[in-house]
């Protein structure tokens, strides 16, 4: 795919930082506002798609590396399963950070209507981050594979 014109590339350079930032905002605030792991990961992957379309097939392999994204995807999943294993003292998937109150990470549990506090809800933000990393890497690998698989068009 041929890269797009200079105007598009300039705007992409400025804009992709904000898209990735918004994606991570949606991932981390998953327990307070609508969003969470999958939605935020899809937003970050759309930034990857923007970069791929604007820069063309020759330059995108310098920016995004498929092997690193594969390893990140597998690590995100393994982190999710290990977080679920840590609650095995009671049952699997037990929210040990919200009930025990002994480890001070994300351990407040307000009840009812409240102005949302980021420091709440136990292991749910950690699982959101793990799922978000996994989804953004998986979607990045899919986008790169399908993009690099096109036949050569007429290069000018």
């Amino acid at each position, binding site marked *: 795919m041929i890269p797009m014109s200079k105007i598009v590339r300039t705007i992409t350079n400025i804009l992709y930082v904000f898209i990735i930032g918004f994606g991570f905002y949606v991932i981390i605030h998953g327990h307070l506002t609508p969003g969470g792991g999958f939605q935020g990961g899809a937003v970050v992957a759309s930034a990857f798609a923007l970069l791929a379309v604007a820069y063309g097939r020759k330059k995108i392999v310098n920016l995004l590396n498929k092997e690193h994204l594969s390893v990140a995807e597998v690590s995100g999943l393994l982190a999710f399963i290990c977080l679920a294993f840590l609650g095995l003292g009671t049952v*699997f998937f037990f929210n040990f950070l919200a009930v025990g109150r002994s480890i001070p990470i994300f351990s407040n549990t307000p009840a009812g209507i409240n102005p949302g506090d980021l420091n709440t809800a136990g292991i749910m933000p950690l699982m959101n981050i793990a799922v978000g990393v996994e989804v953004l890497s998986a979607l990045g690998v899919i986008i790169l594979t399908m993009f690099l698989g096109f036949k050569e068009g007429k290069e000018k």
Partner: protein
Amino acid sequence: MFENLVMHLPILIIVIPLFGAFAIYLFGKVSDKARNIFAFILLGVTEFLVLVLGKDIYTNGLRVYTLGATSAEMTTPANYIMPVRIILVVDALSIFMGIITVTIAFLIFIFSLKSMKEYSGTDKYYTLMFLLLAGIIGIEFTGDLFNLFVFLEIATIAGAALVAFFTHKAESAEAAFKYVVIGSLSALLVLFAVALFYGQYDALNIGYLGNVMEHSFLDKIAFGVLLTAFAMKAGSVPMHMWKPDAYGEAPGPVAAMLVTASLASMYALLRVCFTLYGRGLNTEVIGWIIAVLGLLSIFVGVSMALIQNNFGRLIGYTAVAEVGFILLAVGVGFAEFSSTGFGFIALQAGLFHILNDALDLGLLFLVSGAVLHATGKRNLNELGGLARNMKYTCIFFILGLCAVAGLPPMNGFASKLMIYESVYQFNPVFSIIAILASIFMLAVFVKVLYSVFLGPELKEFSSVKEVPASMLLVMGVIAVLIIVIGLCPDIFVNWVINPAARALIDYGIYRGMI
């Protein structure tokens, strides 16, 4: 301490293959041997755990596991009126199918260590096999309808990606496309039925739904939709076209695992018919419909298998016929729905045939995979005279042939005799058609035996060697199991199958645990 470990076993058996699928990818980047040893240890641990859980359930009764509660059996917390959270329920039928699944996966893994070595992309192959195993065990252990949908989709996606393993051939991609379209359509139908249930009752646990169900008109529609979806995924007659394609184009070990996936869909059908609906339906009519579907599958499967040229497609059509036998027996059992009499024997025969079907078709697909590994061909017209070079493979194929056709002393004979006798008391015509179909199946496989193994020696196969020892060992273990189950079937039926069938008929125990 021991009781503590056994309490957590239902979820550990699902999660260890899931964890292993992704850890294997990381190990595969280090070295091949480390990955093989790690995968072998994980599968061995899973096999041991499932046998321990089986012994516990056969002595003590069923087990319930709630994910995320303060204790494993607290399905309904204090001040709640209905159960919440994802609940796993393991009773005698679930653990019976779980033992079959994990044992066959373990044997297939040892087989594919050598058989898949010369292909690239074996990293992804092992990841997908472990994901498929986790999906199938999830279908068998869950007690929740929506969880069933999720694990059904996991098994479909992993299975379709494995069918397209040979990416240089065009037919594999076409077969995998058909498989994923049919599989995902059937899973969406299950989701439609889940939405119908949620709209009326606000609950999705199978046990709780069985208690509160009022059998209104929408529930009958939901039953029709669920029956269509599970029959589609199991490969019975209206939608059987994906079976010969997918089994013919997949590698041998993959096809043996896909047989287990379609038997898990058969388990889901049993669970919905007996435990979710119970006696509230008109069991005579529904039993007749299921039995007629089974009969059509037997007829179509055997008659199409007579004219095939491709080794894998032929065994695929045989698989359609075997699913027809299971549906026939289960339909008769459902029509009677009693714990004495010929209906109960038919139900036991159906469950026994699930076990035998997994073993027999697994052996046949492994023989097909061994022939592909040794010669690189699958077309019956091009093979010939292999018995001189591959003696042991030929002996295992003869054993598998006798088992599928129902000759004594193999296990196929025991379960088919039970099916013939109990279905004869239901309706004699069904039983006669089933016996004729078995005779045709014997004719089909004798033709395959002659054209692949016997006959004059061909020049291009003079340098073909016997397959490696690990593959022969796996086929030998399955053959020994076939002969042992065939020689003493009454031990198996009384100790293993009887509790499973009684767990289906006495559905009050399952519904009372929630």
